[in-house]
């Protein structure tokens, strides 16, 4: 029987890192969900490095015999902002029973490997395209920032084939060392923890690595429609519509008169000339967003059931994964019992469906924890309207609730709601009420 649940949201900046502690009859059980950052967190004016966070976690999971132990490490998906912390050597001493990853990481599943390869070659093509577009000075600030973000978040995907790999690795631009820890690391290496590659099952067969806790895997599914969302648009040619850097390698073998500027061509209006130039950039933007979505859609989506209470960790799951569960009465019932909600994808609107947020049956909600910090030009992450809507959920709930809590705006100690404690500017602890 579990007597208490403590969730710690670490101050990683733009990223996710959650430690869950379940007090059982004989000992405390621990589960870590993600550990990554793409932009540092702040404690006042001081930066909080991800390395410090990792050291702190390892201290936090140390048992009385001085051994650091975690029952379950779950990685939701292989984006830098969810895994970068795992690249530290310090994890080698940590004893882990099970490492959970989405089925798309399974080295023995050909479909998983196909998806990974598709994403990999797509990221590679995007990278090439980005260099070419940037060299021509064609990109504006919004275009560069999206493409740069997606590349930074994803570049490990291009590990297998990329020539510049060593260079990128040296610049810390890939997630490969973090993925190596998850696949082969922790105490005992590949002989240490049991690696599990999870997928949504129907009917739900909850996993029970911790006595008294049922953990339901809501995503990723291997349903075809969801896999389609994980496939980046077919191969790299999607990107190659720009001038100059043709994947054809040379121009069309037709004789013609050179016109470097389409605006000079008789019969081409200025608007059409602009369209012809812009279409290549627009394509790279769409491609970047499509790649980001493809990887997000591989997210593990966990519903952790302790008695009547549910802690919902959707990772960065996007619409396809959500819809599958919202349409399923059994899972919907589970989701409606959510008390602790890890806000999806750092608070972006499309990872937190309104049909769920505004569900009138979502009456037990106690906390919506948003792990985020303002990042670059992305003014809609978090989406202010979404946070306002979430806050409205708690309007009539009285004093007992934690409400919406942002990792970058921890509540001052004096006004901190019951059950919420800010620890050293390093993490926010939530004592989630259970029955």
């Amino acid at each position, binding site marked *: 029987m579990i007597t208490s649940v403590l969730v710690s949201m670490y101050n990683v900046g733009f990223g996710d890192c959650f430690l869950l502690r379940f007090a059982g009859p004989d000992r405390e059980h621990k589960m870590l969900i993600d550990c990554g950052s793409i932009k540092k967190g702040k404690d006042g004016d001081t930066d909080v490095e991800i390395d410090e966070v990792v050291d702190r976690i390892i201290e936090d999971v140390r048992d009385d015999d001085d051994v650091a132990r975690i029952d379950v490490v779950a990685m939701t998906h292989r984006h830098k902002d969810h895994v970068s912390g795992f690249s530290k050597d310090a994890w080698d001493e940590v004893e882990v029973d099970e490492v959970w990853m989405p089925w798309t990481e399974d080295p023995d599943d050909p479909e998983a490997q*196909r998806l990974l390869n598709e994403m990999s070659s797509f990221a590679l093509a995007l990278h090439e395209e980005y260099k070419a577009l940037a060299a021509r000075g064609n990109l504006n600030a919004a275009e560069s920032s999206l493409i740069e973000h997606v590349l930074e978040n994803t570049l490990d995907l291009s590990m297998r084939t990329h020539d510049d790999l060593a260079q990128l690795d040296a610049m810390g631009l890939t997630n490969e060392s973090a993925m190596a820890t998850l696949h082969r690391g922790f105490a005992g290496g590949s002989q240490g923890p049991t690696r599990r590659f999870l997928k949504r099952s129907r009917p739900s067969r909850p996993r029970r690595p911790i006595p008294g806790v049922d953990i339901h895997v809501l995503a990723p599914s291997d349903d075809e429609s969801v896999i389609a969302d994980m496939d980046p648009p077919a191969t790299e040619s999607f990107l190659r*519509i720009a001038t100059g850097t043709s994947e*054809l390698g040379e121009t069309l073998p037709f004789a*013609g008169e050179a016109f470097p500027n389409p605006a000079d*061509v008789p019969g081409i209006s200025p608007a059409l000339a602009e369209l012809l130039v812009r*279409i290549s950039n627009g394509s790279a933007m769409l491609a970047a967003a499509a790649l980001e979505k493809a990887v*997000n859609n591989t997210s593990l989506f966990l519903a952790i059931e302790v008695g009547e209470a549910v802690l919902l960790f959707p990772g960065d799951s996007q619409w396809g994964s959500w819809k599958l569960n919202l349409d399923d009465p059994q899972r919907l019932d589970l989701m409606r019992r959510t008390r602790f909600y890890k806000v999806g994808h750092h608070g972006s609107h499309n990872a937190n469906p309104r049909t769920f947020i505004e569900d009138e049956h979502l009456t037990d909600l106690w906390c919506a924890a948003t792990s985020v910090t303002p990042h670059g030009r992305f003014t*809609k992450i978090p989406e202010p309207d979404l946070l306002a809507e979430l806050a409205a959920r708690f309007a009539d709930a009285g004093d007992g609730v934690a409400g919406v809590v942002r990792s970058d705006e921890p509540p001052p100690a004096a006004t901190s709601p019951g059950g919420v404690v800010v620890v050293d500017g390093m993490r926010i602890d939530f004592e989630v009420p259970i029955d």
Partner: protein
Amino acid sequence: MRPAASKFQQSYTPTEPVKRGKFKGDDTAYAVRRLKVYAFDPQLGRRRRHRISIEVPYEKLEPGPVGRIIEVVDYDAGSLKLYEPVDLDRKDILAGGGLEPRVDDPQFHQQMVYGITMKVVSNFERALGRALRIDKLTVLPHAFEGRNAFFHPGTDSLCFGYFKADPVDPGENMPGQIVFSCLSSDIVAHEMSHALIHRLRKFYLEPTNPDVLAFHEGLADIVAIFQHFSFPGVLRDAVQESRGDLSQPGKLIELARQFGHATGSGEALRAAHDEEERPDPRMYTETFEPHDRGSILVRAVFDAFFASYGARVEDLVRLATGGSGNLAEGSLHPDLVNRLADEAAGTAQRVLDVCVRAIDYLPPIDITFGDYLRALVTADSELNPEDPLDLRANLVDSFVARGVYPVGVLSLNEESLLWSAAPSEEMTDFDSSILSDLFAHEARSWGSRRELVKYGDRYGDFAIAFHQWAVDNWRHLGLQEHDRDNNPIAVSGFHSMFRVGSDGQLLTEAGVQYTQTPKTDLDPRLAGLQKRAGATVVFSGDGTPRYVISKPLPDEAHDAATNRQAEKRIADMRAFVHASDERDSYQPWIDDAEYTHADRMLRRFELASIHQSIRRRRSHDAPSSRTDSAT
């Protein structure tokens, strides 16, 4: 001459002026121009029988070609080169029936896009029974490198991309071979259809419900696929191969085979036959992507076509089989093949005609598939009152089987599905002398197919008169009271309609589209979509309103049923915005300066970008072949 319409002048709301290019008539005495094209694309065109000659109405052409509607500019923005334009009026080219199909000759590419686009124009003009007055379209056969092609309304252009076939899974192409979308007759016909639908219903690019863009895509596919049935050799082959059952999967009813295969999908881009044995009505509630949703429409129409074709050839098969109806083993007799192919071509033409003609019976805004079904039934009952092949019943059956129901009708019987005849006792008639003038103008174009007589100065007179009629009758049109400054009723288009009645007499009618956009602040929940009311009215030649097809906005002057319909429309719009937001993974990354929240619905449904997001790559399993289904 009527007196100057000064009293109308005050209330006349100018709509966007209809620009007309300068076209000079020509006295050359050709009726048609013959041009060689690939019937499908170069992949199939390796066989001689798939390199065919089509006929389009003759017009004098400048090098380009540049004609009345099409201006080909062969600028390759991938290679930054301009290719020399073809002069199709050059004597040797004219005499040879156009250039020979060649993948390596850009001048042939120019000829092919011209030929196919003009074939689509003549199909539309034939079905509508009138010449289209349309802004000139700039066509770029090699606009960019990429797996895409699109109609861009902002620049009135058709842009075709080219790309390398998938290096691993190129289908029947060479790995890495260059594939030109401008050499796919389907892709060219599809994009040209977008342009013409846009000319006829400009608000159909506003994604006010999930069917609007899907209708654009679906009808464009329908036009492209039916075009195959006008190639006699191709059709006879298909009849022989399928032993008369044209609904079997095959190139005849597939769209863009080479394009699909070259992208590694292992199949044509889309097809008009069902993937499942029975249509699944849930597809209509669950399919979101416009092309996929449009395919529901394509399959519904083709299902009805197959059923009507089957009924039409039943007697032929009995005649050919001594009454048994069971065809013998082996090849069909060539005479039977010819007769079956003739019937298929005739039925196809009739279905295509009605699919296009139905546009005249569609509301000016916010179309749904249910509206289209009603327009099809109405258009067909006007054109073919007898309907010996039960085409209308077949259409209703196949739409309903796919979960598409018209709203607000009593039953699925024809009398209920016809757009309601206007309650004429309460409405005033339109001045029939003005209609006579309009018809006379149109009729003057008939003498010379090469010269469109412009409405010229009379355009304003006609528009003013139609406008005034709506100002007087707004209650019956689902519109609101005209308010020039804050809520103007606008005439967004009008035209004459001609058809031969069941008694063999020529019938003349006029169609008018009205839209009304209240000048209020945009509803933030509609993400840039405007709330508009709209009505299409069809007048008979004597000025009596025959059909009123309206999309109302709520107004206290309307009855409760109309207001319920109006409220539901707005609620559906909001729900669609919401559903689109939830699926949009692009939006969170773009700040308001680049991708404003306010116009996000229009931005995300731009044709250029939705065409780009098509992705079809086959997984390790090859697509299962399908062998079932008969007409």
